């Protein structure tokens, strides 16, 4: 459905997007992941024909963004980072305007307006001025305008940014819901979002493609090693963290133990297991057997986050570290 080859965008002094290539097949939800300023928005703008590429090609539904922009535009729905709404318009009036711009008219237009207002749960603000809507409603109106002409491809730029947790969940559900009918590319810098909504991930950093893989593979990779946070307190008097650290290191399967903090008798440790080992049970047993209190034991931040940091952060310069199942791109 989307085919991008060596897509590049150069400005006078910088290269915002540097030879990115990827394919997205029909009906997929793809997460476009990267830190702020990685080139996500620029790439999306090139796919939506808002910006012309400096080099390379991008095809949407078989049409080239440079040669047949009108055909491409007919087949995409786009939600920019800030929903493109006119504050002086009413919701229904706005959706009608966008529908007409996308080539709908008459009964069909009315049908689609009714459908998207229901689908995006904005029926109760149909007669309200867009300028008076809350951020969550604006985002949903933005989503409604993107799907009004039932496009093959949906391009959503940070669809959940600035929403509260409840709205974020609703928006994610809505996006997942839409996946059946549309091919979706959504950009985000929030990892759990990708895990929850997407089937495939494209990670970019500083304009370069770092990795493309399915979420399943990434998660499998993430589960390869466990990372656990423990909070331990001494039963009689404060715990001596070097002793505890030493003890924890002796638990079979443990790779690395880091003392995170130590305050009034309690100490927090982060334990990384060796690859493929699950150590939580053994850790708990070891702590209790030594006569300490185990105040807390929880898996630390998802390792997908670490993979992400590894790929986009300092270690991105040493791609050899990455796992073989991750399709590496030469840098």
């Amino acid at each position, binding site marked *: 459905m989307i085919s991008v080859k060596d897509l590049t965008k150069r400005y006078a002094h910088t290269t915002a997007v540097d030879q990115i290539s990827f394919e997205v097949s029909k009906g997929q939800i793809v997460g476009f992941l990267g830190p702020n300023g990685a080139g996500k928005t620029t790439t999306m703008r090139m796919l939506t024909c808002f910006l012309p590429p400096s080099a390379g090609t991008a095809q949407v539904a078989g049409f080239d963004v440079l040669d047949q922009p009108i055909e491409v535009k007919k087949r995409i729905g786009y939600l920019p980072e800030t929903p493109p709404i006119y504050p002086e318009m009413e919701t229904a009036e706005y959706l009608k*305007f966008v529908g*007409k*711009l996308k080539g709908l008219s008459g009964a069909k237009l009315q049908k689609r307006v009714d459908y998207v207002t229901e689908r995006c749960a904005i029926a109760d603000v149909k007669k309200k001025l867009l300028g008076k809507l809350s951020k969550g409603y604006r985002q949903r109106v933005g989503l409604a305008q993107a799907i009004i002409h039932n496009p093959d491809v949906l391009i959503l730029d940070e669809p959940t940014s600035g929403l509260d947790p409840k709205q974020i969940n609703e928006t994610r559900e809505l996006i997942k819901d839409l996946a059946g009918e549309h091919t979706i590319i959504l950009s985000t810098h929030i990892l759990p979002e990708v895990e929850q909504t997407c089937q495939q991930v494209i990670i970019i950093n500083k304009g370069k493609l770092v990795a493309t893989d399915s979420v399943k593979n990434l998660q499998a990779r993430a589960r390869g090693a466990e990372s656990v946070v423990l909070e331990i307190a001494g039963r009689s008097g404060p715990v001596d963290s070097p002793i505890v650290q030493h003890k924890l290191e002796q638990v079979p399967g443990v790779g690395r133990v880091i003392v995170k903090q130590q305050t009034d008798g309690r100490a927090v440790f982060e334990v990384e297991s060796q690859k493929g080992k699950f150590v939580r049970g053994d850790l708990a047993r070891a702590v209790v057997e030594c006569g300490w209190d185990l105040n807390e034991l929880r898996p630390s931040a998802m390792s997908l986050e670490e993979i992400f940091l590894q790929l986009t952060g300092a270690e991105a310069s040493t791609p050899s570290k990455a796992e073989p199942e991750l399709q590496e791109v030469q840098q």
Partner: protein
Amino acid sequence: MRNAWIICRKELGSYFVSPIAYILLLMFGLIFGFFFWNALAYFVVAGMEMQMRGQSFPMNLNEQIIRPLLSNVAVIGLFFIPMITMRLFAEEKRTGTIELLATSPVRDLEIILGKWMAAVILYGCMLLFTALNFAFLFAFGHPDWKPLAIGYLGLLLQAGGLLAIGTFISSLTKNQIVAGAATFGIELMLWISGWVSGYENATWARVLSYMSVITHFESFGRGVIDSKDAIYYLTLIFLGLFFTARSLESLRWRS
């Protein structure tokens, strides 16, 4: 063309839902009303003096009221046109809605034409106010309607050109004030550049004088369609819209 009309309707909606249109119409109506009342008062006083002296100097509504008033409208328009056009693109660029227009299956030219047409229609509404005043002349006198109609045509052509320039300048910036001020400055220069012809007859002065939007209105004000002047205004419209198109295009290559 359907798309241009959709955009035009949306722009008109924006003008008339917000206070913009009403404030412009009100201020323009008040200012023109004052001019009209002034011109009429002079006319009446002059007419009474003529009668008292027993002279029968020919009094002509067209020559003494309509023509000078139309010239006044041409100049007042210079002050109002920047306020009509300054938001056209600057606002869309600032709020990001330009991304919606630019990623819809609509051609740049259709966007530009739609916006420009909306501006011309709003200006036309302002002219309707002047027509209300002139209607009194027809109720109580017998002015010739043809020069008036041609005068209006001239005003519309002139405004079309100036609005096209304003549209172009609005497409250059995200800031409405910058767009408005720049448009006003350029339009003012296009007015006063005609003044050099008063004391200088060299080629440069004639060029400057030819560039003046007000000089070209004189023939229309007299009720004459001079092709030279009509072509001048049409050129202005074409150039303004053409440069807007180029500006939108370059926006994409630069931004």
